[in-house]
């Protein structure tokens, strides 16, 4: 059974879109603020890390990031070496 030309075209467009989306996920960076930064409480300064789409995917697997007031906050110390983590929920 052969695919029609229309099916092949749609599949090719979908595949190209998928490759673009995966590439954008790697390229795009999000500001993730440090929730536990002591300078924030003292001076009102909040440091942030730029995390890629793939980094946020990893965070999503153990609720490593949360959204508060339109800001993404990190729930863990990103400078510490990361071991195996389980979802806290």
């Amino acid at each position, binding site marked *: *059974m*052969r*695919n029609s030309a*229309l*099916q*092949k075209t*749609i*599949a090719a467009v*979908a*595949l190209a*879109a*998928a*490759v*673009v*989306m*995966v*590439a*954008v*996920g*790697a390229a*795009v960076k*999000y500001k993730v603020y440090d929730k536990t930064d002591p300078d924030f409480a003292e001076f009102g300064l909040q440091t942030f890390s730029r995390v890629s*789409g*793939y*980094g*946020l*995917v*990893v*965070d*999503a*697997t*153990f*609720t490593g*990031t*949360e*959204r508060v007031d*339109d800001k*993404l906050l990190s729930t863990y110390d990103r400078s510490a070496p990361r071991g*195996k983590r*389980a*979802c806290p*929920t």
Partner: protein
Amino acid sequence: MIRRRTVQLVSLFALHASWGPELKWFCNPVLTCHSCALSWFACPIGVLVHFSGYHIFPWVALGTMLLFGALIGRMLCGWMCPFGLLMDLLHKIPSPKFELPRWTAYTKYLVLGLMVFLLPFLLGESTMWSFCRFCPASAIEVTIPGLVQGGVGSIDGWLVAKLAVLLAVVVLAVMSRRSFCKTLCPIAALLGPLNHFSFWAMKSPTPQPCPGCGKCDRACPTHIEPSIRLRQGLSANRHENCIVCHDCQNACPSHAPSKTTKAAPADL
């Protein structure tokens, strides 16, 4: 069938064999919880729930799903999904069997829209109304082991609801083939429409026109009558509920090598 079952079993163990290293940046498009201590990959549904809560477009998760869907449609549902294997095995338990009404196949789109996208978007990624909070795969891989570890003291109403959903899914799977995949699975809802144009097109097992013996219809684990599409000259997998298992192809008398076939006198 034996080949598919072997691949399913190998996948079950391979996907849950991480002794420490993780590849959680990769959204594997099958229903297996990334919170399982032994899992290698991220669950795309869990990631979508979180990204909806973050109000961020899920480039990676949707891109990965689209990539696999455009190439092979729902083949991973039939060959790799551990929860699909459980559904297949549960249906082998002797019990009264029935088919769910056709309209129930549309409920998975509601589940996807509401519990994966809309409610986490409105209520935040940690909402109790997301799919993950009721996911039966998560109940098996995470909640029950957690209960064994933490004891009955960790039981609350939400946990009871999650286990009740698991029980309902199991009971329904015993009586109706692949019922969860057909009616509730959000991965099936995402990948299903891609079946209509994926590069993977099953070849017709029989010379046209199909004689219509119905053996493929009876072999189909999702009861989507592949013979209808074969008679229309379409690939059998051009249906959103097809799991591309190829059981219909193998059941076709024109395709399957018959063990009882004897050589004709002219061939001797």
